[in-house]
């Protein structure tokens, strides 16, 4: 995955100025760096470039308060399949919450639901912006291991040495 001559500015602030980026199209790539350095901007630029076959997880959960947990997953599937939804809910450790609405979920559960919905999208690669905000470390590890087992290339933003331990590649901004 490549981004050539990337220039992004918000008003007077130039986040990227004619920068080139290359990411391996396999394994887990972690984008790290201090807040405001442009991790989300870079991930969004990647999504714009590879939109057709990528699934993107927004930094905010963006859940629909009027849809149940299970409906969130079924809604994004081209051919809704409850057994696939059940597998994905198991992957993000939300089994048993199928009939609940987002208002009944904790912050970490809502984040995992957003991640599960992203996984339900048809895609060949995953672009995940802060997928584990509010998720405890032990659970992060278990879910990351399952994500890697899916075999899709993953580019994700995040902080912390624990995440770096799971990453195959680290890009520091």
């Amino acid at each position, binding site marked *: 995955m490549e981004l050539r001559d990337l220039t992004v500015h918000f008003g007077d602030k130039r986040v990227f100025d004619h920068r080139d980026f290359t990411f391996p199209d396999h394994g887990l790539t972690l984008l790290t760096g201090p807040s405001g350095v442009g991790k989300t901007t870079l991930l969004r630029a990647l*999504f714009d470039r590879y*939109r057709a076959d990528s699934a*993107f997880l*927004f930094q*905010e959960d*963006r859940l*629909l*308060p*009027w*849809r*149940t947990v299970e409906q969130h997953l079924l*809604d*994004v599937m081209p051919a809704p399949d409850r057994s696939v939804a059940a597998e994905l809910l198991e992957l993000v450790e939300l089994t048993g919450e199928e*009939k*609940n*609405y987002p*208002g*009944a979920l904790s912050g970490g559960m809502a984040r995992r639901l957003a991640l599960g919905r992203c996984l339900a*999208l048809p895609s060949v690669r995953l672009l995940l912006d802060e997928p584990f905000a509010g998720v405890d470390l032990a659970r992060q590890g278990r879910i990351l291991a399952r994500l890697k087992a899916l075999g899709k290339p993953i580019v994700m933003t995040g902080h912390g040495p624990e995440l770096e331990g799971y990453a195959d590649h680290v890009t520091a901004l």
Partner: protein
Amino acid sequence: MRGPRAKNAIKLLLPLALWLGVWEFLALGVGHSLLLPGPGEVAVRLFALAWTGEFWATALVSLGRVFLGGALGAVLGATVAALSAWKAPVGWALTPVMKIVRATPVASFILLIWLWCSSDWVPVVIAALMSAPVVWSATAQGLESADPKLLELARAYRFDRYKTARLIYIPSAKPAVAAGCRTAMGLAWKAGVAAEALSRPRLALGTQVYNAKVYLETTDLFAWTVAVVALSFMLERGLWALWRLWERRGAGGTA
């Protein structure tokens, strides 16, 4: 009865008692029921009317007319708002019509519609004309209130137009549309009864109000007016209960 329920009952009954007292005081001051009957007199007449089958037939037919008109107007208003949001030129064409309908005095509409329709249909058309702009405006605002971040999600997750409408626009607009329908039904009720009073269909609360006025039966005039107000409250409460039921089927704790 303790706590909040008692407090609510006091909040409802105390002002009611106060204004009934004021009414009785004024009626005693005037001293002639032809000009101003007292609340007791009106209550007795209302109960007498309520024992007749004609009263309930009149109330039901009036309610039916206004409900039909209000519902048609709500569907029309919501459809125009949805079409305007979907295709801007439709909005450019229809927005002035809605604004003109909203600004036109109801009396002008009643007299015009009366030229074109039988008296039975005048209240229906008037109720529709009164409710349509209110629901149109509420629906347009509701559709505009859809969260841009959810709309961005819909694009990123390749939702088609139908799915975006079903999952984002309609649920986002629902509260505003419900509030609009509630206001619209109140307006439709008042305008519908006024249309009945002018066009005078056979079974109609408005016709009864008009007849009571013409024959100087002031107590009847008050009794029918109290019935109109009571039915208006019942219509509003009934619609609100239906809305709550619909809402409970949507977002909540569990499905």
